């Protein structure tokens, strides 16, 4: 199974943030960058699935030149190659624009002979939290979409009933059926899906691996296909960013060590959460 994983370069925020001069973005100068956590799991899931099905993993990002770091990080843990759609400031794109850009790349790659049976995204990115790119991409490609998925495997009795009709680039559509497991309100939900499909992954089903030395070496030499980003189509509806009020600490220190335990039990009794 050939898998495309869409990832996003995001600032790695541990403490509070500072806004940039325009007031529409955060000041990233003092921050490191990473890929969103759902996407780390999507990359891991892709690597495991590709290994089990003798397939390949390609990672794609729409981002600044520096986002090649995130692509290479994914190659270092096992992805085969990368696609960088170079957009100096991805924040000018709305989720619908990003989905369109990725859809166009998928069609273009298909024309160039590189087709994907499965496209993975994260449920939502750590910065914008939009929760739409995967779903909008699925509609753009005419594929079914799942979100909140944690693991996937080839479905039992794979009948190869996968979608008929032409692939986006005019080649043969991939076939096959997969089982996907995700978290629902009443338990683990199991889906069976014909390929090609778009699946948005939620963290927690697999543990992202660390890169090996050979992985790092491979990442340096990996092929990264580059595209220029088109003009943002619908554009971002953002007016500005704001920061929450910093609340002054009003903590009551009940004490130090085990001696403070009775004071805490008093508090718990007062709140009324002690089991009778």
């Amino acid at each position, binding site marked *: 199974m050939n898998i495309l994983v869409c990832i996003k370069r995001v600032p790695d*925020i*541990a403490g*509070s*943030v500072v806004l940039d001069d325009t007031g529409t973005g*955060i000041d990233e100068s003092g921050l490191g960058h990473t890929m969103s956590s759902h996407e780390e799991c999507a990359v891991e899931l892709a690597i495991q699935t590709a290994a089990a099905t003798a397939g390949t993993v390609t990672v794609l990002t729409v981002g600044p030149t520096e986002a090649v770091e995130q692509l290479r990080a994914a190659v270092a843990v096992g992805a085969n190659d990368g696609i960088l759609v170079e957009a100096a400031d991805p924040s000018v794109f*709305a989720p619908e624009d990003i989905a369109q850009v990725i859809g166009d790349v998928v069609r273009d790659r298909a024309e160039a002979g590189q087709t994907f049976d499965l496209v993975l995204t994260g*449920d*939502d990115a*750590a910065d914008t*939290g939009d*929760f*739409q790119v995967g779903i*909008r991409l699925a*509609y753009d490609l005419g594929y*079914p979409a*799942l*979100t909140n998925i*944690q693991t996937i495997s080839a479905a039992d009795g794979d009948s190869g009933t996968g979608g008929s009709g032409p692939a986006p680039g005019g080649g043969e559509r991939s076939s096959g059926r997969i089982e996907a497991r995700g*978290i*629902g*309100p*009443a*338990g*683990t939900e*199991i*889906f069976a*899906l*014909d390929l090609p499909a778009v699946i948005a992954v939620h*963290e*927690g*089903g697999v543990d992202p691996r660390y890169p090996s030395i050979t992985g790092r070496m491979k990442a340096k030499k990996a092929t990264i296909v580059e595209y220029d980003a088109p003009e943002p189509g*619908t554009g971002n*509806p*953002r*007016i*500005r*960013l*704001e*920061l*929450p009020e910093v609340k002054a*600490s*009003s*903590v009551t*220190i*009940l004490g*130090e*060590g*085990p*001696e*403070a*335990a*009775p004071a*805490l*039990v008093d*508090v*718990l009794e007062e*709140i*009324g*959460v002690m*089991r009778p």
Partner: protein
Amino acid sequence: MTVVYVETDPAGEVTLTSAEAITFARQLLPDGGPDTSREVAAPPSGSPEGVVIGQLSDSAVAELGRLGVSVIHHLEHPDLAEYSAAAWAQAIVDITPESGTLLASGTPRGMELMAHVAVRTGQRMAANVIGADEEGLLRQVHGGTAFERLRLDGELHVLTIAGHACNPEETTPVTPEVYDYELDVAEADLATRVQRTEAEAADDASGLTSARAVVGAGRGVGSENGFSEVLELVDHLGGALGVSRVVTGLGWRPHAEQVGQTGSRISPDVYIACGISGAIQHMAGIEGAKTLVAINSDEESTMVQRADYAIIGDLHEVVGAVNEEIVRRKQ
């Protein structure tokens, strides 16, 4: 007109987050006035309509009435018995007015359905909204570290409401009118239908989101075997265990117990954070806690600074002593 997609739990009751979303619709969104494009009686001003898919219990109707919902669109069909985002979203689209606001709570279901609806109606969607005024909408970004102010164009605004953006509040009760519909479900929309559900795993998560007392455990617990005192406290309080991402990442506890931006968002009466530093992504999950208690060896940690009450010290010793004190008082 404002329409709220209402989630019900397996017992058929309106979920807490949907009650929040309805309250949000009632109190914070400008009322677009009655919708005249449909043959549904216009509800009183300021009163949102609700959409319920699947069984509609009498108690849910009564609860929606207490929340000020005067019209309930009830969508029930054998093909919708199992969840399928595409089919459910189309059912919502079929009864959604062409203008106004359509919203859901920012749960995985709410997010997924609104995203499908937004595509199918050709609209933008704003996720994790926490406020609205004449300037536009306010929503959480960067896991709640910052807010984005934005303006949606288009006739229909599609939103999800961040968990705990407001407290659910009942109002002067009304008797909702219930409209049932004949539906056509397209075969293609059933491709993403749930085949089966395995109960266990998410039971933990639902216990976590509904517990009145949650004891949180972080890296400070030290190892996979370091949870005994914490679990005993959970038991004394009849509560639930919630953990930080470091704990799930190390494989000490399952992801279903994770609290935070990429885990559950909880609103217990008390959250007792043991050995958790208070990273922004963790705090995003506990904003709804009414009382926050920190047990941490580091007085300077964010968790201690943000807490209402704190004990400084080794969590194993402190929690052990708390358990002993509880047992002593019960005797």
